[in-house]
């Protein structure tokens, strides 16, 4: 009795968008919250942001980038397939102000998180500027969806293949220098990017929320795998976050913690590829 995939769509190379049946999450979920899923009974529990939801249809949208075995298996799934299990909505919703000017800075897959936030911010009557970053044009996701809602969208690519060449921080600097009165910044993306976004806003005293993505196991506050240091204190990101005051966050610790299982993840992926090769070889043999 898993959760059925209704639609699957490739957004960029190795990046898929899924619409999945999950009625209660569609009803209760809010911007900034996430779900935890397992692709099969041996599967790892991985957190993914609720990118969109449709309470009437009883579906939620998730976006997954292939980075390890779980996401590779997930991204090979299609409509009609079932995700083994899915729990949520987890974490605290984004705190949504009203009548303010808010800049959402997303990078890479982080734009999937920016999407519901821009929507929620607009719904609450804020002026929303989105800065969307990507390494290169073909990796930019959800530009159209976000452009449709935001007051202004600025796209940057590292290689200049689309939008402005450079980092999201350059665009943010320009906005600030250009005299835009920014009340708040929300940033979601690679940790290094978030760190520099926070460094950019700090001297100007602009409150900045960063959406942290530590390793999680249960996502219910039971294990502490997700602990991050904010303002010198240990916090469990899965229940107290995932959004924290970026100026107080120890990003370097987060980067180190995120790297801990890299050798194992590589091994798991290699193992998975070997199994796939073996299966293919077996299939060929049977054909003979």
């Amino acid at each position, binding site marked *: 009795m898993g959760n059925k995939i209704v639609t699957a769509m490739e957004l960029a190379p190795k990046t898929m968008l899924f619409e999945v049946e999950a009625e209660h999450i569609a009803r209760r979920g809010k911007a900034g919250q996430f779900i935890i899923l397992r692709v099969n009974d041996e599967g790892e529990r991985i957190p993914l942001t609720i990118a969109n939801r449709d309470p009437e249809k009883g579906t939620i949208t998730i976006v997954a980038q292939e980075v390890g075995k779980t996401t590779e298996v997930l991204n090979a799934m299609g409509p009609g397939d079932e995700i083994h299990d899915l729990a949520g909505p987890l974490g605290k919703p984004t705190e949504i102000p009203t009548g303010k000017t808010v800049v959402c800075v997303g990078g890479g897959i982080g734009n999937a998180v920016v999407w519901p936030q821009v929507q929620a911010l607009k719904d609450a009557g804020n002026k929303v500027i989105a800065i969307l970053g990507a390494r290169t044009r073909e990796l930019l996701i959800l530009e159209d969806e976000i452009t449709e809602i935001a007051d202004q969208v600025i796209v940057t690519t590292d290689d200049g293949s689309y939008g402005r060449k450079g980092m999201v921080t350059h665009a943010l600097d320009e906005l600030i220098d250009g005299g835009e009165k920014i009340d708040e910044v929300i940033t979601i993306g690679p940790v290094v990017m978030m760190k520099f976004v926070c460094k950019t806003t700090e001297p100007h005293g602009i409150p900045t929320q960063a959406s942290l993505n530590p390793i999680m196991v249960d996502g*219910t506050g039971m294990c502490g795998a997700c602990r991050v240091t904010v303002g010198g204190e240990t916090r469990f990101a899965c229940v107290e976050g995932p959004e924290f005051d970026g100026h107080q966050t120890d990003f370097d610790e987060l980067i180190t913690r995120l790297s801990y299982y890299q050798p194992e993840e590589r091994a798991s992926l290699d193992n998975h590829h070997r199994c796939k090769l073996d299966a293919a070889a077996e299939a060929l043999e049977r054909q003979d």
Partner: protein
Amino acid sequence: MSDTPKKPKKNINKAKTKTPMREQPAGERIFNFEEVPLGYNEEEATLEALRCIQCKNKPCIAGCPVGIDIPAFLKLVGEKDYEGALRKIKEKNFLPAICGRVCPQEDQCEMVCTLNKPDKGRDPGGVGRVERFLGDYAMEHDLTITPECAAPTGKKVAIIGSGPAGLTAASDLAQKGHDVTVYEALHKPGGVLFYGIPQFRLPKEILLREVDGLKDMGVKFVMNYPVGKAESLESVRERHDATFIGTGAGLPWFLGIPGENLNGVYSANEFLTRVNLMGGYKFPDGADTPVKNIKRIAVVGAGNTAMDSARTAKRLQPEIVYLVYRRSRLEMPARVEEIHHAEQEGIDFQLLHSPIEIVDNGKGAVGAIRCQEMELGEPDDSGRRRPVPVEGKIKEWAVDTVVLSIGQSPNPLLTADCPDLARDERRGTITINDWMQTSYEDTFAAGDIVTGGATVILAMGQGRKAADAMHRYLTSGDPAAPAGEDSDVCDGLS
């Protein structure tokens, strides 16, 4: 042995010590996750049951948190009526295969057993071992003693949390004819029985079989459903006639010392969850959740959780497993059997040492654990002698992994959602009255969420007491028992 009777006159076994139980040898078992004590066969179980002298005052019954009629079931085993014995236990305890394995019998029924005379070298009756035999016998012979359920009452009950407290309440309420649904945050049922207690101490198949038994009784399970997140408690209460909270004490404590967020530092919950719930010991071939290739590990603490962590670590084939504890052996809270097993398996106990820092290896990961040597001073509130630092004595062990097993408190996932539910702010526990009823009239609570971290059997005993009160609440609107009824569950209530 010489104690074994040749031909007992009365059908009693006069052996002074318990019938030995076969075990996987320590040298073998540290290479696998299979169970350690192998259990009794019929002959051994019967022999042990016959050691019970059927004394008049039966202190064991009072010693059992759920009041099992122990002499009665032992007598039936002595007569080889295993099914009858099982029925007898199941009147009070529906998880004998589990309790026989994890209950601290030495502090309960066996401690007060008339036979128990350690100074005279006489063991108590091996109640736990025979209980376990019966649980296993039922499984091997596919004996499902599914209790008869009363005619449907039409009342709907929600059980939040599927640990021993929730499962017991679910069973009792289903038997009384109520329509029961269990909501569980994780993807497997059982609470600590699944994610905490390792496979080699409690095979998961046993637990899953008990859960299947509940399903046969008509209990519905909704997994991956963290109440408070997936749905508010208020809305769950609206949809049901009564609600039970058994969400346990799942929030792990950390020490607050430098280096605690280094890579390689785990809470016992995370370490055990990775290995047990997620099957990490099979990584990468049978499970996707990684467990590190550990070489040298220190487990901090000395409760059951610490023993489980140390023994689990040992099975991942490291060079050394230290167990660091700030008091002495005498104060260790773990079950005697667990301490004994840990020692047999070569866990290196470093007693009277308290961690003061986890040292960075220069790459953001654990390099060593630095400890302050302690000595025992005056007794503290808990009656145990308080550890005090020995000035200037600091010691360091080179390790790559540290597992902290220093306690846990109730998980606020649910309670954060209902701020007006009465609770003890300091301990985080839910406040209940004598009938296990919370400050919400239709909502009851039991287990670790009420007591703080305790035991499986206490959680079950409370789950039963809550179920009884809920039944009365559902049928008469008043959870208090009319005088004289259900005397065993109302002990001390009036």
